C-alpha cells in the first residue's frame, strides 16, 4: 500500500460525506456533459434548419447501431456486477467482470470500424456534407471515450486483481455508464430519426 501512504491527508478527508474520488468523477462527467451537449445541440439546430439531413440520415445502418447499443448496454451490466463484487471485497471477481466490460467495448469498436469502412466505401465520408460531418465527429468523439474507458479499465483491473484500490472499480463504472448514456443519445439522433 505504498501508493496510499504517499497520499496527502487532504485526499482522505470527506467534508461532504462523499469520497473524494467519486466526487471528482461526477465533476468530470459534468464537464463532459457540456462537451457533448454543445455538439449535439449544434447538430439538432442544424437538423431543424436543413431538411436535406433526413435524406442523408436514411443511409445509416439502423441494425448495426441497434446491435452496438445492445453490446454497450450489456457491458454496462458487467460494470455494475464488478462494482458489486468490489463492494464485497472480491477483487479477483471484480477484475474478471471488468475484462468482460472491456470485451464489450472492444466489440463495439470493431463493429464501428466495420460500419465506417462500409459507409466510406459507399462514398459517405466526413466531408460529404454536414450530416456526415456530424455523424463521424459525434460518433468519433464518443469512440475516443470508449477507447479511453477500455484502457483505464484495464489499469483498474490490474490493481483490483490484487485486491488493491477497489474503490476505483466503482469510479470507472460511473464513467462507463456515462459513455453508455452518450450513446443512448447518439443512437436515436443518428440512426433512428430518419
Amino acid at each position, binding site marked *: 500500500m505504498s501508493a496510499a501512504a504517499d497520499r*496527502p491527508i*487532504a*485526499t*482522505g*478527508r470527506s467534508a461532504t460525506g462523499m469520497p473524494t474520488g467519486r466526487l471528482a468523477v461526477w*465533476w468530470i462527467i459534468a464537464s463532459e456533459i457540456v462537451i457533448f451537449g*454543445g455538439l449535439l445541440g*449544434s447538430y439538432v439546430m442544424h437538423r431543424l434548419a436543413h431538411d436535406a439531413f433526413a435524406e442523408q440520415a436514411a443511409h445509416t445502418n439502423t441494425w448495426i447501431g441497434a446491435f452496438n447499443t445492445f453490446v454497450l448496454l450489456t457491458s454496462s451490466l458487467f460494470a455494475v456486477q464488478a462494482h458489486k463484487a468490489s463492494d464485497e471485497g472480491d477483487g479477483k471477481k471484480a477484475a474478471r467482470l471488468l475484462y468482460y466490460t472491456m470485451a464489450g467495448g472492444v466489440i463495439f469498436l470493431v463493429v464501428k470500424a466495420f460500419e465506417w469502412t462500409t459507409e466510406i466505401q459507399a462514398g459517405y465520408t466526413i466531408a460529404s456534407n454536414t450530416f456526415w460531418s456530424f455523424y463521424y*465527429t459525434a460518433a468519433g468523439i464518443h469512440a475516443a471515450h470508449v477507447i479511453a474507458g477500455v484502457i483505464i479499465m484495464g489499469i483498474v483491473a490490474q490493481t483490483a486483481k490484487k485486491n488493491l484500490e477497489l474503490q476505483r472499480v466503482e469510479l470507472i463504472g460511473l464513467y462507463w455508464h456515462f459513455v453508455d448514456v452518450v450513446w443512448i443519445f447518439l443512437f436515436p439522433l443518428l440512426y433512428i430519426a430518419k
Partner: protein
Amino acid sequence: MVVQHADPAHEHGDHHATQSWVKKYLLSTDHKIICFQYMFTGMTLAIVAGFFSYVFRMQMAFPGMNVPGWGLVTPSDYNMLVTNHGAIMIFWVAMPVLIAAFGNYLIPLMIGADDMVFPKINRLSYQIFLLSVVVLFASFFVDGGGFGGAWTMYPPLMAKAEYNLTGAGSSVFLLAVALEFVAFLLGGINFVTTAMNARAPGMKLYDIPIVVWMIVIASILFMASVGPLIAGAVMMLFDQQLGTAFFDPNRGGDPILWQHLFWFFGHPEVYVVLLPAIGIVAEIITVFSRKKLFAYKTVLNTAIGTGILSFTVWAHHQFVAGIDPRMANIFTVTTLIISIPIAEMMFVYVATLYGGSITLSTPMLWALGFIGTFLIGGVTGIFLGASGADIYLHDTYFVLAHFHYTFFPIAIIGTYAGLTFWFPKMFGKEMNETLGKIHFWGTFISFNCIFIPLFFTGMLGDHRRIFDYTNFPELTTPMLENLRAFATLSLIVMLGFQLVFVYNFVTSLLWGKKAEINPWRANTLEWTTASPPPHGNWPVLPTVYRGPYEYSVPGRKDDFWPQDAKG
C-alpha cells in the same frame, strides 16, 4: 453535514526532507511549487504579450515606422501581434496566474489542508499547460507565421487557409488553446473537490474565505461553459484539415454557430477571471480596514447569481452579426441585469471600508485601484450592452478601452494586489513598500492615460481592425493622431514602471527583511504557519473555530482573531 474521515495518526510528518532540485522544483506535486510554476510561466508570457502590445501600439501611433526591437510592422505582423496579445493575456496570463497560481497556493492553505486532493493530477495539469505554451510558441514559427484572425477565431477567417494565409499557424494555435483548456479542466476539478472535501475540521461552509469561494465558483463556471467550445474546436479543426463544412454556409454550415459556441464560453470566461480577482480584493480590504467583511453571505450569493446570469448574456457580442433583433432585445436586458450583482459587490466593499481604520499599504492601494478602474469598465459596459448604442460602437476603440478597463483591473491590478499581499507568505521575505507604492502609482496613472484617450478615439470612429490610419483621411485628423500617440507613449511609460516591480521582486527575494508568520495580522489559516510554509503546510493540521473576518471584535485585546485560535 460535516463528516471527518481523516486518520489523526497521519496528521503529522514531513517525509520529503531531501530531494534533488529537479524533483523539488520541476516534478513536484506540492501545491505551492505548482503555484510558482504557473505564476512564473504566466509572468513570462505577460512579458511576451506586453512586448507585442508595444510593437503594435507603435505602429498605431507612428504608422510605417521602424519599431525599435521589431522593425517594420507588416499587416500580417500586425494581425498576428494583436491576436496573440489578446489570446496570451487571457488564456496564458490571466487564467494561469489568477486561477491556477492563486488557486493552487490559497485553497489548501486557507482551508487547512496539507495539499490538493489529487497532487499528481495537479502536476499533470501544469505539464499540459506548459505543453500548450510550447505549442503556442511553435505556432509563431510554422509556415506562414502565427495566426492573425483575432483571439475570437471567427470563421471563415479561421477556417480557411486562403483567407487567413496562415494555414498551419491557425491549426497549431487552435491546438494550443485546446491543450490549455484540458489543463484548466484538470486543475478546476482538483480545486472544486479539494474545497468541497478537504476542509479542516470545524470549517463550515460560511467559514471559507471569500477568495476560495470565488476560485471554486470560477472553476465551476469554466467547467460548465468550455464544453461547447471544445466541441467547436474539434469541428473547426476538421473544417481546416479534413474538409468538413460545419462553419461554411456555401456547403450547409453556419458561421454564426461558431460565435455562439465561442461566446457561450467567452462571456462566462470574463467572470471566470473576474471572480478570483474580486475575492483577492475582499481579503485585502478586510485586513487593511480591520473590519469584518460587510455582508459575507451577500457577496457569496451574489457571486453565485452572477455566475448563473453569465450564461445568459453571450449574444451581446453578436449584435451586429445578424442575429434576430428580438433576440438582441432579450440579451440587452440580461446584460444590463448582470451589472446589478457586480455593482452590489462594489457597494459591499465600500461599506467594508466605511468606518474602518484603513492602512494604505501597497496591497491595499492595488485593491482600491481595482475598485476604481473596474467601476469605469463596468459603467462603459452599459453603453455596449444596449444593442442600439452597440451598433455604432461595435468594433471601435471604445469597445477595446471598455474591455481593458475590465481586464486590466482583473489580470494586472488583481494579480499585483494578491502578489504583494501574499509575497511574505510565499517567499518568507518582505517587499519594499516605497518601491511598491512607486510601482502602483506609476502603473495606475499611466494605465488610465492609455485607455481614456482610446474611449474618445473610438467614439470618433477609430475601428479596431485598421492597421494603418493614413489610408483613411477622416481618421488622420491632428486630434486623433495626438490621442493615439499619447496612448502609445503612456504604454511605454507603463511598461517602464514594471521594471520597478521586477527590481523590487528580485531584491526583496534575495535581500529582503525576513517576514514574520503573520505580518499583516490577518485571520485566515495561511497566516498561522511558517513563512514560507513547509512541505505539508503545518506540523499539525489546524482546526477551525470561527469565520475568516473577525476583526476588531469588541472586548478582545487584539484587533484580529485567527480562525484556528481556540479562545
